[in-house]
């Protein structure tokens, strides 16, 4: 823990991981709230409006934490990664500034109206404010993904005389093919979180015999959306993202799969512990030839293993990358199973009485968070040792003027601060769930 590079990496990793626990729920809930409000308007059923208001309150608490933990992210580009900013700011400054101008203003302006303006607005105008918040949050997601996608797959740039990068094509940057797949995969992942959380709270209400009408709405909405997005997560988005990695970052693919030797008809590892020193996987459970097929659509295709690349280009933490990727894929598969069974039971009209299934839905709540976090760890660990793929090493990008001691001081500060914020968040959300969707908000007193 004495190297400045490690401290700066942990600093960003810790703050961004904690931050993304919140936007994934806001981005996931926003379209579901629009659905609830639409149903409430169409069916003239107050239960749907109460359901929408309940989730708007959860959304509001969540949003505050997303905002306050998000501001440090923009700052850290300058404070902790100044050499990177000097090198690449001429390009990614575009997308980051656009996020502020187009997404944050839209989102923050209409959030107040959405949360507190229902009495001042007509139902239609209030519906539009919900749509504006939804659009703002999803637009914000795009600019961030476009920034990260550029770091994964730099496009639309040229080198300036001083060695830094400058923009050569705005449209290449904004329409980076990497951003397209990554955005689809990421947003669908956020929607999975939103759907599972909604279904889980619904299951809790049905199991505890309270707010049953609302609970059924939560489950129905959550399960239908969850089923659709869990499937989209695998195909086409997960598949598309995976094939991009295979094409552009073959060494990353090899490390994710812990494929040490290049081979035709490469197997897919389901479970097993990579032993990087021994260049093997312990206790493997394999599907023969599956990796070749998934990557190239041919069972006998040659897949490059880690031995095809010089060791200095390998991602530094192969075991963590391998586990992140396998946890993401494994959980994604479990989500599909849970949601398919739930939708089947819903269709047969048995879900609301199937206590075992309600228990599964209730307890599944933390797992989409884990899967989303693991997915991001796969993307970011997989990019190593590069900060900007092929152009700048992570070791060259941090602020050379900020010592390890100063970095650790603020890292510890953030850890303390975020512990308090996390406890406060759980306390407030639990309070809203206990209070339930039927009555007036607890906050109005």
């Amino acid at each position, binding site marked *: 823990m004495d190297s400045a590079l490690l401290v700066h990496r942990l600093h960003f990793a810790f703050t961004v991981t904690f931050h993304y626990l919140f936007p994934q729920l806001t981005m996931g809930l926003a379209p579901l709230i629009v659905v609830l409000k639409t149903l409430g308007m169409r069916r003239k059923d107050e239960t749907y409006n109460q359901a929408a208001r309940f989730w708007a309150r959860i959304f*509001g*608490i969540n949003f*505050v934490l997303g*905002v*306050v933990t998000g*501001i*440090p992210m*923009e*700052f850290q*580009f*300058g*404070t902790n990664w*100044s*050499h990177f*900013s*000097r090198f690449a*700011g*001429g*390009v990614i*400054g*575009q997308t*980051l*500034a*656009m*996020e*502020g*101008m*187009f997404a*944050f*203003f*839209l989102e*923050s*302006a*209409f*959030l*107040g*109206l959405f*949360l*507190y*303006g229902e*009495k*001042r607005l007509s139902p239609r105008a209030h519906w539009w404010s919900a749509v504006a918040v939804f659009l703002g949050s999803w637009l914000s997601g795009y600019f961030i993904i476009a920034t990260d996608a550029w770091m994964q797959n730099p496009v639309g740039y040229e080198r300036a005389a001083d060695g830094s990068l*400058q*923009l*050569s094509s705005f449209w290449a940057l904004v329409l980076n093919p990497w951003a397209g797949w990554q955005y689809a995969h990421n947003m669908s992942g956020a929607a999975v979180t939103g759907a599972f959380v909604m279904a889980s709270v619904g299951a809790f209400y049905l199991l505890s015999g309270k707010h049953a009408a609302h609970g059924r709405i939560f489950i129905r909405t959550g399960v239908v959306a969850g089923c659709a997005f869990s499937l989209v997560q695998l195909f086409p988005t997960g598949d598309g993202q995976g094939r991009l990695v295979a094409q552009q970052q073959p060494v990353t693919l090899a490390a994710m799969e812990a494929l040490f030797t290049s081979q035709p008809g490469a197997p897919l590892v389901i479970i097993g512990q990579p032993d990087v020193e021994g260049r093997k996987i312990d206790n493997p459970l394999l599907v023969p030839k599956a990796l070749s097929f998934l990557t190239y659509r041919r069972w006998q295709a040659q897949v490059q293993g880690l031995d095809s690349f010089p060791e200095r280009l390998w991602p530094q933490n192969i075991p963590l990358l391998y586990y992140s990727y396998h946890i993401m894929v494994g959980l994604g598969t479990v989500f599909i199973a849970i949601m398919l069974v739930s939708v089947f039971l819903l269709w047969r009209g048995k879900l609301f009485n199937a206590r075992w299934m309600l228990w599964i839905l209730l307890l599944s709540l933390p797992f989409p968070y884990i899967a989303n976090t693991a997915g991001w760890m796969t993307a970011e660990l997989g990019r190593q040792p590069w900060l900007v793929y092929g152009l700048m090493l992570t070791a060259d990008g941090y*602020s050379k*003027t*900020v*010592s390890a001691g*100063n970095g650790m*001081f*603020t890292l510890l500060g953030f850890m303390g*601060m975020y512990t308090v914020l996390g406890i*406060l968040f759980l306390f*407030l959300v639990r309070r809203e769930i206990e209070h339930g969707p039927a009555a*007036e*908000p607890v*906050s*109005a*007193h």
Partner: protein
Amino acid sequence: METLWFMVVAVMVAAYVVLDGFDLGAGVIYPFVAKSTAERRMVLRAIGPVWDGNEVWLLAAGGTLYFAFPQLYASSFSGFYLPLMMVLWLLMLRGIGIEFRAHMDNPVWQGFFDLIFSASSALLAIFFGAALGNVIRGVPLSQDGYFFEPLWTDFRVGPHPGILDWYTVMAGVIALVTLTVHGALYVVTKTEGELNLRARKVALLVWPIQVLLTVVSLIATYSIKPQVMDNYREHPIGILIPLVVLASLGAMLWATSKGKEKPAFVASALYIVGMLVGAAFALYPVVLPASTDPSYSLTIYNSAAAHHGLIVGITWWSIGFVLAIAYFVFIFRMFRGKVSLEGGGY
């Protein structure tokens, strides 16, 4: 092109200070003017629907700075590492202080969140003022365009200063005083009765200090950095800026004592804009002066992004800016008038 982006960033910073300034100021006077729970909720309601949007100007200004002057962003953010991190912590505490207070039933915790909100607002005002003070005074830039400033050294203005020295502390106090008055005048426009009277009293009480400190700061700035007068000598039209500042100070007193609430607030906003534009005018084209060797200073020319990017940016920035103004006009109209305690929230 660089000059245009210099003005754009200056406009965005000024918009941030004027807008978030009033809710920071409202936080500063909060425990002094709002005595009962009902009054505290009134103040929170006056800023509640807009504070987050106001704060977005900080993010958007930061993003625009990053995009237009990446070198400046990299140098200043890493150099001001410690105070910026503290600003982040304060922004966090303040955000939850405002938003989560309403979720607390217990008066003990409500009081605690009140304290957090108010103290973080006051500290943020001081930090922002000190930051501006640092930029005017200059920082110990090295030849490669980087620096790292400790929080304090010997509190003197020299070639190796800390974040805090007598000059930047003074700038922090001026910012606190300015935003206190600004926030008080905003609360006046949004409230009635006792609360309105108390906020007005605060504004009238602090106003003489604001006038005194404005004059002191001009003299102090000239004494540590006589070069600030160069641009004013070269372009005498700049003299209009201090005249605007003085006129708005006068207008603030006149409008407040006559009970003209909105004009008083507008005059205060004008004062803030005048002070910031005056500083920007004096610095131009330098954006971060070096206290070590003037030739290491960052200017708009050696810190800007490349030409093509800046041209492209003008297009989308203009669209974004017009949209942002439209949202703000809409939201402020939506929540116009005095606040009441009916309906949900806070």
